[in-house]
């Protein structure tokens, strides 16, 4: 296993584990307001200090880990649920279907992702799960594109011709024959999308269009800490660094996995 992949898996694995165990390992309650402990700098009791309501930053950070991960994963599942069937159809039927679907994807990709997210969220009052759906919607086109290109390559293979000769139904061919073979590149693409989804989701929360107080979503935490940046910088820095670490971890995993899957790329990376 390449070093990148190992390091990435270690980082992501640790963060996921911490997120899952958050309610049990958090040293303090994440949402209890206490005026006497406001703005305490990091100490032995409060490892990462406390925020403007006297809440423990570390505990909030740990609980927020779950939200960020859930946001990234569920948004990506939404993109996969729509993008994969679209890509399969475009790549397998070709012709007019392909043209129509891919041009629509081009149009969606011609709008900056955050605008598309804003547009979707403008319609309804903000909440975390709506943000996840909006973010998932934004990343349907890239998933559809990757699926399509894999499908195009697979559609001419002998085993697909054999399935057609056996008069298998189209849905059988698409989901039982092509899809299982298309997974490896799709998983790599999806893992990178998780990063984008986390970043976009937290940006939307930061703008007040995602998670709402008293949630401890990382983007919202940074947004709330803005007003106290000169007297209590740790409130903003902790979730900021956590987010960077998570993104670096996922990127390392994605790069490492891609290198293993794509020998052409491996040769090039090896050279440079």
């Amino acid at each position: 296993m390449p070093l990148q992949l190992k390091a990435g898996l270690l980082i992501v694995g640790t963060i996921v584990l911490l997120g899952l165990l958050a309610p049990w390992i958090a040293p303090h309650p994440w949402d209890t307001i206490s005026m006497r402990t406001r703005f305490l700098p990091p100490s032995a009791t409060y490892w990462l200090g406390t925020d403007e309501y006297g809440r423990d930053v570390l505990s909030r950070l740990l609980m927020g880990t779950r939200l960020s991960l859930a946001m990234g994963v569920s948004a990506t599942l939404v993109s996969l649920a729509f993008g994969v069937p679209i890509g399969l159809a475009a790549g397998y039927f070709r012709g007019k279907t392909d043209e129509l679907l891919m041009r629509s994807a081009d149009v969606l990709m011609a709008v900056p992702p955050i605008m598309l997210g804003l547009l979707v969220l403008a319609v309804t009052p903000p909440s975390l799960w709506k943000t996840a759906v909006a973010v998932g919607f934004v990343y349907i086109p890239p998933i559809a594109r990757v699926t399509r290109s894999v499908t195009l390559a697979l559609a001419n293979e002998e085993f697909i011709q054999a399935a057609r000769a056996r008069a298998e139904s189209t849905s059988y061919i698409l989901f039982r024959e092509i899809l299982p073979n298309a997974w490896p590149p799709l998983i790599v693409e999806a893992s990178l999308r998780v990063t984008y989804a986390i970043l976009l989701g937290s940006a939307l929360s930061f703008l007040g269009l995602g998670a709402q107080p008293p949630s401890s979503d990382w983007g919202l935490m940074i947004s709330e800490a803005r007003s106290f940046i000169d007297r209590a910088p740790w409130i903003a820095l902790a979730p900021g660094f956590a987010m960077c670490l998570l993104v670096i971890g996922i990127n390392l995993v994605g790069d490492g996995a891609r290198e293993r899957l794509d020998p052409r790329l491996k040769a090039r990376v090896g050279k440079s």
Partner: protein
Amino acid sequence: MAGYILRRLAFVALVLVAVSILVFGITSLLPANVAYLILGPFAPPEQVRALELKLGLTDPIWQQYWRWASGILRGDLGESMLMNRPIAPLLWEAIVRSLTLTVTSFILIGVIGVGLGVIAALRHGRPLDHTVSVATYLGIAVPEFFWAIVVILVFAAWLGWLPSSGYEPLSAGYWIWLQHIIAPVMTLVFGHLAHVSRLTRSSMIEVMQSPYVTAARAKGLPERVVVIRHALRNALLPTITVLALDFGRLMGGIVVVETVFAYPGLGRLLVFSIQNRDLPTLQAAILVVAAIYALANFAADLLYAWLNPKIRYGRSVA
């Protein structure tokens, strides 16, 4: 080449029409009735009905769309519901301020990004290359809004060199204007530098190992000429595509950056119009952003085709 330009232009037009339908469609899904939004929640029903008739809200949706879209083609963007002012001048001011940020950042990203990439490639495998590589890897991972916080923390709170937010027009004095631009521009540059420098580095390394660079060296050309005239021109091809995409990302990035720095541009107008349900402003602002984004991609395609004859004469352009 003319056919290619026309085809690309047709696609830009198609994208804009589709985006306008998308924008109009999604915003007309809004549960709250516009007439209620204007008159307040306690308005008597007959008054609401009268205003609905006046605004044409009872017409079929495609008629409403046609009225809106043809208005835009005539340059009439409608009125902001919240500020009771025509949108066009409001939007124009915001666009100018936002383009000040994005164009300045874009130039800096291009120059610094390509510069760092080339330096790293020429020092390939040495400590300087590793430093640049690690720094850019970190740069990709840091979200824009966190960069903004870091910039405020360092330059406003600790060093006290820059104001932490706000905007001053040029008439307030050049230095004061510039001071308010520096922090948002810095944030945008930090956030987008990494893609450009990483890509330039990898394509530059590849090009420097190619036979024609060896040939150019063998001819006895000075290294500077080999690097700039022979290698860089080809290595920049993928970079240009990424730069164009980056311009689009910058247009997205201003939403966050302008909100953080309370900079009254297009991004802040967008967030403001969403928060206040000012639909006509929202529709117009998103359409403008999509237009700028599409034109940036169009410009990049043209530049790419001009630099790369393979595409200019090829058929597959979509």
